[in-house]
């Protein structure tokens, strides 16, 4: 540095060269070159498709013609047609109750397993494994399984048992309200497994000494849960909430196999609507615009969770 700083006038060229070398050396010595392959990969795999979807959402593209023009019409059409707001309402119901019960059921099952392990009860591993199996079943298969369960003829499993008790047949899938409840219930069953796994992992991090100390201090079971266990696992709950919310918003396969969005459009959630718009109506523009709405909803929900629960979960 000193040589360069006090260099006489005639050596100006070499000074510039040295500065360039330094600049090059600095870049080479940084972590940036190592990040280039990953950055290219991320741009190609994540950012470029998002950019493309945003671009397509401002066009009138369809799946079978190559000509298109740029327009706001996709968004205007989306917000002004009769089906959009009811579809958002259906999605809201489906997501809210799915997430709430997946979280609750996952937590209760995880708590029971941890308690069972604490009491050295047999079968906790079997319960854990069974739940994991439920998590591994593909959505389409779950849809088919629940179709058989909810079948409204005498061949339907639930209706068969109900008829033996003199009840039914219950219109699980042909009544619009019951159909939405049935689909939500199937999704709760599907997502509880994953929620339980995360909750179980979270409960493993709760210090036994801390719980013991709270017990000695006279805290009851509910107080221990509220003041010791829940605050400790808040970061896990946050992660769980984000993942299962995004998962539920993106749910498409199970609903497709179970009701195809029907009867009417009573169980048409946003992801299924995107599929129908693109692959049945061939309307890429409106499909992409709906995808952008879904993306914005997912981002907003994540931000809200981070804001509300993030602070609580911050160990500092």
């Amino acid at each position: 540095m000193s040589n360069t700083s006090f260099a006489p006038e005639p050596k100006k060229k070499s000074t510039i060269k040295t500065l360039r070398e330094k600049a090059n050396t600095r870049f080479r010595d940084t972590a940036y070159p190592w990040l280039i392959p990953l950055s290219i990969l991320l741009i190609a795999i994540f950012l470029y498709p998002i950019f493309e979807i945003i671009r397509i959402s401002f066009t009138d593209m369809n799946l079978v013609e190559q000509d298109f023009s740029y327009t706001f019409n996709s968004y205007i059409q989306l917000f002004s047609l009769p089906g959009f707001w009811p579809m958002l309402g259906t999605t809201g119901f489906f997501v809210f109750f799915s997430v709430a019960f997946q979280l609750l059921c996952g937590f209760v099952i995880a708590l029971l397993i941890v308690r069972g392990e604490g009491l050295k009860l047999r079968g906790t591993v079997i319960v854990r494994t069974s739940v994991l199996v439920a998590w591994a079943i593909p959505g389409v298969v779950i849809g088919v399984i629940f179709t058989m369960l909810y079948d409204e003829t005498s061949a339907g499993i639930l209706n068969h048992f109900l008829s033996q008790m003199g009840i039914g047949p219950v219109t699980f899938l042909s009544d619009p309200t019951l159909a939405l409840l049935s689909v939500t219930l199937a999704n709760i069953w599907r997502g509880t497994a994953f929620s339980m796994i995360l909750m179980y992992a979270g409960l493993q991090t709760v210090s036994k000494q801390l719980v013991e100390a709270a017990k000695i201090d006279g805290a009851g079971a509910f107080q221990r849960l509220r003041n010791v266990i829940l605050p400790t696992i808040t970061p896990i709950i946050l992660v769980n909430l984000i993942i299962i919310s995004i998962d539920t918003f993106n749910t498409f396969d199970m609903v497709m196999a179970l009701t195809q969005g029907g009867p009417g459009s009573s169980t048409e959630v946003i992801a299924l609507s995107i599929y129908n718009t693109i692959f049945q109506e061939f309307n890429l523009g409106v499909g992409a615009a709906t995808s952008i709405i879904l993306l914005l909803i997912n981002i907003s929900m994540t931000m809200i969770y981070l804001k509300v629960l993030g602070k609580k979960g911050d160990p500092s």
Partner: protein
Amino acid sequence: MKTFTKYLLGIGVLVVLTGCADVSADEEDTLTWITNTADSPDSPDEDTNHYVNENIEMIENKYGLSMQHDIHTNNIDEAMARLQEQATTGRAPDMALIDGFTFDRFVDDLQPLDELFEEYEMDINDFLPFAQDVMVGDDGHIYGIYFNTNIRNIFYDETIIPEPPETWDEAMTISEELVDQGYEGLAMPLGIDEGTAVTSLWPMFWGQGGELVNENGERTFGKGDNYQYMLNVFEAIDQGVEQGLIPQRMATLGKENDLNAEVAAGQTPMFFGGSFQTGTVEDILGPEFENWEVAPLPTLEDSESTSTIGGWVWGIFTEDEEKQHAAFEFLKNTFVGKEGMGQYTSMRGLQPVRESVYESEEFDQGPFGDEYLEILEEEGRDRPASLEYSSISLQLQTAISEVVSGRKSPEQALDDAWEIATFGEEETE
């Protein structure tokens, strides 16, 4: 960094060159084709599987080509949209099985087959008139080979229903009697799938003189008389459901084959379905199938009897002459030649589309062959090839499902379907 860039470029060039070399090799030695699972070498039916594979082997040996097949997705609208996208971008397979009513959309990208028809002594006039209409383009050239067809009809148990209904009112009267006897009423697909449109909506709509689209392919189902015709269909079905003569759960069944489970339950002596269900219904019912008959679909008052035709057409996309020959010979031997069509449609319980096949030794027409042929010739009508069709169909399937489930009145459901289907068109009219 320079060395790194050189390596990167070098690898890139190698990858591109290797890729190109592979593609050229593939293009020369492989005949690519796309079909349905049931009509493929992967068919779950052992006989079909064996038959198709045997013919593939023969062509591979004769032409020194490898036949590489792909399977359409179960959602036919989606499958046709994907194929069309491939065709318009020049990435279509060498030959493809195309849903009959969409065939017109592919004509610009398909190869004319007139010379091959002549060379392989296939007579276009032997094909049924409706099939010829699809196979021949506006320029008079042949672009496809119709493979098989199906129609929509009513299935009924003759021991319970001695005379089939000819009108909708008669169908409802019979349905009422069935319900009184403890059976289910009239079963018909009314959920969200194409079966609902082609079986439960279009025949009664067309029978009154309704048109889904005009000659330019633009939607017309919600305009003028067409609106009233469609509303009549919606109201008739709505009344049937309201009176308990059509089970409400039909709102969850969108495919004709969904009704097979209803038949299996033993409580459904009358249903609207497709001719392609015959074999399955026979398997389900066993010896009881002898009591079952088929008849044309009932009509609304002052209407003609109409039945939606379905079916598949083979088309050849490749410009390579040798591959065209290989593809045509394979299709002729396996599916569309007189012998091939006779053997294959008998094996699969399908309806052939060549007049000579109906008289040939190879063809076994099954229990209702004559009835189906009569319905096909007298009442058969294909769906419009318009690009708007899929959207129209989806909106009206959803609309009738809304009506049957009680979410909307017939007027409201039809108005909403029209509003969604024609959004943004008002300005241009």
